[in-house]
């Protein structure tokens, strides 16, 4: 990937991104769904999935919560 492509990827935003507040509000529900059926979770909470892919702090919280599931 050349510099322009990397820059394009870095700058690209997704209008489906729900933002931190909405993602964190359903994180407990989303994480259990991911553990059961990741595809269903991504389809049902597309905006949350998009957000977690773009937001490092929320991704950290998600990964931590996922690690606590039995």
């Amino acid at each position, binding site marked *: 990937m050349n*510099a322009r492509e990397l820059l394009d990827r870095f*700058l690209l935003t997704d209008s489906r991104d729900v933002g931190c*507040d909405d993602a964190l509000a359903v994180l407990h529900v989303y994480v259990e769904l991911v553990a059961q059926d990741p595809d269903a979770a991504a389809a049902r909470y597309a905006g949350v999935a998009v957000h977690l892919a*773009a937001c490092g702090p*929320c991704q950290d919280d998600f990964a931590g919560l996922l690690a*606590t599931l039995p």
Partner: protein
Amino acid sequence: MDRVAGPDEESAEWLRVLDPAAPDHDAGLARLHERLLAIARGELRRRHVLVSGPEQDDLAHQAAADAMLAILAKVATYRGESRFTTWAYRFVMLEVSHKLGRHYWRSAPEALPDEQWDRLPDRIGVDPHARAEARELAAVVRAAVAENLTEHQRTLFVEIVLDGVPLEAVCARDGTSRGAVYKAIFDARRKIRAALVANGYLPPREGESA
């Protein structure tokens, strides 16, 4: 969002014991705190933070204590959409993030002089040997930032993207929410990209006009 018929057995037991009228309420609080502390300790280890020993344990205690307060204040809003513990541990994650953000400033690296823009190519993964390309990229983004962002967006973009200050550390220092800072950076990226598409540096995506 799903609304389940009711909490599972273990979750219902947590709700029962968190009721101040429960005869074993105090024991329940102690048990919950013990769980939260274990989760906070585990999370700090998982994140491989540059804090260890008693200092790390102190952060775990702070996170567990503040998560406990949040849980007790909000337990009435728990609607059984997940296990109670998943709902509760979310507060631990948020507190761990917040404590680490605050802790960052206790040992933050000194700000590097100038040349911030020289770091942009590295931040987005451009091969450091592609110097001419990297210089051009930094120059066009710098111009787009200067011409299109508000002062607030410029400050956050430089601090978080170029200087590498963790977003959560900015939130802790400024007393702002993660969502507000993320939104500012999100809008900054969108505006910079729109400017670079408009000047022909980046190609438009489907549905975008150059």
